């Protein structure tokens, strides 16, 4: 091994390398193979080097703590910089010397110039040379470094000219690897196992790929794990485990080029380069050119991307706790929202596609859209009002139209081109920074793609992309949008698997994002109405609160209960099934003939491929065991300071699911009736007003929120249809109502001895009393059949005070 490769401690040969080459006799063949192996390893020993990146803090920037959980490329790098700078550590990357002029190939780690203090290349003999970044390659995810001093005692054997690979199985890759502190060279034959499956064959080409990924270079430690990078080795160097160069050798053991680990090898160099000559002289950008391009891109987009503020309706206190749809949506979108989710407003950024129309690449849910009260677009220093046109069915984006005024600039989404694999393009993400619009522009490229839902293309970008990112070509034209792929019936996914969608890990990722190339986008924009999701629209507060009903209350079965009821088979050991224990009058359930004691098993809807198995709780032994209904109870308790009404909450699992399917949808309900399975058609109907959506009267000074007596309250309290009363929904602290010891969920049956039947009527009586400047008002309170009298002291209340 010699002195000059003192850090190369061991050589490991992988696989049955070279064993089957050449037609000669066994011994001869063996000797020949050994010689070639040694030639390749020698090439590796001489060409591989270690590069050290040292970072600095740019003067104009104060680096601050970064949220660990935001795996956004820029923030992540920032996080690294912080560590490197604070600890004065260098980042260690494997480099490959391409020529004796001092060009070194390293993986593209996307470091900005302003953070780089200096770069050093450590030759195999330990000599350190200063280096600069010469070029960002266009046809390989790599950077070319140039050593700025002449090389001493660093000689390498020249490359052999070869511009295509006929049989990937006859190519070898030499890579420098590290395990702990031990550095070693690996020698692998590429894709040996798959050599027969597509060698030189174009049948498995996917949109012009010249090689299948089976012929890729193995990755070693490809996983980009931040923790794997921190390694307290002696000199405090850190190892970057991203793409590293491998030396490619032909079957004669002669070096022919270099490729990056973890990538498919493009045998014909149609899209990506590996030949040394092409790597050295191929297209690319100097980092000065890149900075200039990024700056130009920012300027170009600054006039086309606008800040778009969504202002939401504030829902009243008593309804806030019940907005489960919104909670559900929020949990589904965790980590993919733009701006702050303060509950009252959200800041997003919209791209102008015409002087009055903008597209907002933000996946908005039904509950959220329903609550939008106002949309504001910031143009220069003016704020223009806009309205929601609609949200797309397939892509997590929506359109808004200006109500007044015009936008100074817009983008015509006409660019048909999509970038080839490995080629550089720019990405632009708008975000809020110190209260101002900030465009984050970065170079990126994609390495692989796959077909997904409805034949959409999913690409794997080199640098992670946040959803809502625009893609631009080098001429700064918009070529695509990276956004969430919405799938049909996705809102129902959580319900289908039973129980609480909130804690389903798969939902937390926010679904899958892909690139929607411009032709796809312009098709959507040409006829947006045809592509809108009709369920995503603005709703009045009242409309938003109204829900649907089957008209039953139920209990979840569970294993023991299923056994006792002898329905183990039908209920799959009690894992599914809702045991009906109440049927509301005049409800769809009553009309269908469902009876107390029936067990609802499944619902089939055209929106889901499989029937939804009804189960309000997740399995007894499930780690995330969480009962939907328990959660509701908890919300109630939280909302009312411990008080809980003696009537059922209508916002249960079944109702939420039916509501998600949608009013007017036809579904098939399968249930057990007297031991027999029945399947009936059901058209989902809007429910009468329930306690949540009941008409109400609120007077803050008096301290009362009063609601109509609704059907489920009557059923829960066993009141007849003729019972005249209103329900106390809320009592303000310190108010006359509180002093009179009126409690939430009590009934008020009379005011001054005359009965009261609706919140509206109650409100009029209060208002009249205030107009007449009455000192007090006597209410008759009913609590589970026991009545008492309570005086509301009105003497301190101004007439016409807020309601």
């Amino acid at each position, binding site marked *: 091994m010699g002195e000059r490769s003192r850090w190369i401690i061991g050589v490991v040969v992988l696989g049955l390398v070279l064993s089957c080459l050449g037609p000669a006799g066994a011994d001869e063949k063996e000797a020949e193979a050994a010689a070639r192996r040694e030639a390749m390893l020698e090439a590796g020993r001489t060409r591989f080097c270690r590069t050290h990146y040292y970072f600095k803090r740019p003067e104009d920037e104060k680096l601050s703590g970064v949220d660990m959980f935001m795996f956004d490329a820029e923030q992540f790098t920032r996080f690294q910089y912080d560590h490197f700078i604070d600890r004065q550590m260098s980042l260690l990357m494997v480099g490959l010397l391409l020529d004796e002029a001092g060009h070194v190939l390293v993986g593209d780690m996307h470091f900005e110039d302003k953070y780089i203090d200096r770069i050093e290349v450590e030759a195999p003999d330990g000599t350190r040379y200063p280096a600069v970044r010469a070029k960002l390659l266009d046809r390989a995810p790599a950077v070319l470094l140039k050593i700025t001093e002449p090389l001493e005692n660093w000689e390498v054997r020249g490359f052999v000219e070869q511009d295509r690979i006929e049989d990937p199985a006859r190519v070898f890759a030499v890579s420098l690897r590290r395990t702990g502190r031990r550095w070693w060279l690996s020698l692998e034959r590429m894709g040996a196992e798959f050599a027969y499956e597509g060698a030189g064959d174009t049948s498995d080409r996917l949109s012009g790929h010249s090689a299948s990924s089976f012929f890729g270079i193995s990755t070693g430690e490809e996983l980009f794990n931040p923790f794997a990078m921190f390694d307290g080795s002696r000199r405090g160097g850190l190892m970057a485990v991203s793409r590293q160069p491998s030396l490619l050798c032909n079957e004669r053991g002669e070096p022919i080029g270099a490729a990056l680990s973890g990538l498919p090898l493009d045998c014909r160099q149609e899209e990506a380069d590996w030949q040394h000559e092409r790597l050295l002289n191929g297209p690319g950008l100097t980092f000065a050119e890149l900075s200039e391009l990024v700056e130009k891109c920012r300027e170009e987009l600054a006039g086309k991307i606008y800040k778009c503020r969504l202002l939401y309706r504030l829902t009243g206190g008593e309804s806030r706790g019940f907005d489960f749809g919104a909670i559900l949506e929020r949990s589904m979108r965790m980590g993919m929202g733009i701006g702050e989710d303060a509950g009252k407003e959200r800041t997003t950024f919209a791209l102008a596609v015409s002087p009055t129309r903008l597209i907002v690449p933000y996946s908005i849910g039904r509950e959220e859209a329903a609550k939008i009260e106002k949309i504001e677009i910031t143009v220069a220093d003016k704020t223009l009002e806009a309205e929601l046109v609609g949200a797309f069915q397939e892509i997590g984006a929506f359109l808004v139209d200006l109500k007044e005024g015009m936008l100074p600039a817009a983008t015509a989404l006409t660019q048909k081109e999509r970038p080839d694999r490995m080629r550089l393009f720019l990405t632009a993400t708008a975000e809020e920074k110190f209260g101002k619009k900030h465009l984050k522009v970065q170079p990126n490229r994609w390495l692989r793609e796959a077909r997904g839902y409805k034949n959409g293309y999913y690409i794997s970008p080199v640098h992670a992309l946040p959803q809502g990112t625009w893609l631009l070509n080098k001429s700064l034209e918009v070529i695509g949008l990276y956004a969430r792929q919405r799938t049909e019936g996705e809102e129902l996914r959580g319900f289908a698997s039973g129980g609480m969608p909130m804690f389903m890990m798969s939902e937390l990722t926010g679904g899958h994002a892909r690139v929607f190339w411009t032709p796809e986008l312009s098709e959507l924009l040409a006829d947006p109405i045809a592509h809108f999701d009709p369920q995503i629209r603005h709703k009045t507060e009242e409309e938003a609160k109204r829900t649907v009903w089957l008209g039953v*209350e139920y*209990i979840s079965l569970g294993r*023991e*209960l299923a*056994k*006792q*009821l002898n329905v183990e088979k039908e209920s799959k050991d009690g894992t599914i099934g809702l*045991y009906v*224990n*109440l049927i509301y009058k005049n409800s769809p359930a009553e009309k269908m003939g469902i009876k*107390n004691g029936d067990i609802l098993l499944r619902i089939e809807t055209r929106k889901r491929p499989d029937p939804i198995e009804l189960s309000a709780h997740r399995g007894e032994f499930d780690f995330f065991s969480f009962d939907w209904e328990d959660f509701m109870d908890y919300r109630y308790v939280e909302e009312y300071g411990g008080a809980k009404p*003696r*009537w*059922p909450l209508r916002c249960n699992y079944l109702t939420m699911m039916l509501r998600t399917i949608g009013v007017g949808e036809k579904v098939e309900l399968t249930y057990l009736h007297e031991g027999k399975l029945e399947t009936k058609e059901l058209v989902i109907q809007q429910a009468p007003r329930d306690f949540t959506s009941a008409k109400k009267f609120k007077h803050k000074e008096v301290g009362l929120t009063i609601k109509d007596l609704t059907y489920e309250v009557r*059923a*829960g*309290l*066993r009141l007849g249809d003729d019972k005249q009363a209103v329900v106390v929904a809320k009592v303000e602290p310190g108010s*006359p109502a509180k*002093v*009179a*010891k009126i409690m939430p969920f009590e009934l008020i049956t*009379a005011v001054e*001895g005359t009965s009261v039947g609706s919140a509206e009527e109650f409100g009029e009586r209060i208002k009249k009393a205030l107009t007449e400047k009455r000192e007090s008002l*006597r209410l*008759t309170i009913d609590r*589970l*059949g*026991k*009545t*008492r*009298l*309570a*005086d509301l*002291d009105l003497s301190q209340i101004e007439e016409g005070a807020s309601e």
Partner: protein
Amino acid sequence: MDSKGRVVGINTLGVWTGVMGFAIPSNECRRIIALLEGDGKVVRAWTGMEIQALKDFDSNTFLDSDDGVLIKGVEELSPAEQAGLASGDILFEVNGEKVHGMYVEQLPAIRRALGDLPVEEPAALGVRRDGRTLQLTLTPVLKGAVEGKDFDCRRWNMTVKGITKHTNPSLYYYRKKGVFIRAVRYPGNANQAGLKRHDVILRIGTEEIETIEDVERVYEALIAEEEREKKVLITVLRDGLEQLVVMDYRKDYEKED
């Protein structure tokens, strides 16, 4: 006892620290003793009217009246309802005796007076309603049991009790006669099964439960049955809704420590 050694009250409930205690005054005792010596039982009348002080500082409700007591409510199907009393009336006279219920402290005396009315004998009530004075006639009936009987389902680690309208009005509201769970012990089988205090027991297995004797009978029969799997389906009424609970009593909590 007082300092002369005379009995002034009988202690019924004391807090161990001695700070607070409850006692039955000797006057009350003497009255009841007299009744017990006479008929052998205390006869109480039930009118079904619910009273509230005229000046009720608790709910800040004050009425302009110098005498009488406020009727806050009238129980359904009660003599008071039959007599035509209504919520909001002021009762100022009973059989010619003035009623004074200005403050909450005076209410027990009125309740006692009403309870002492001769059963099944019409009583004349003087009532004020909306400024008018009415004379109503009310015939009290015999008051039923105040406390239901109770029973300890030892093996299930819970106690049950009969519902009465006087002590469990909120349960009586849902079910006029029946049995409710007075307490569940922790740890215990009832607790494990998810039964809760104040659940009204409707059925054990397939047996309908209406009285404490029903529970006793069904419980004893189940416990005696050695062969059966020690699980039974219990149907309870909780907040107006029927709930099904599987009582698994294979484990004997009292045997294990």
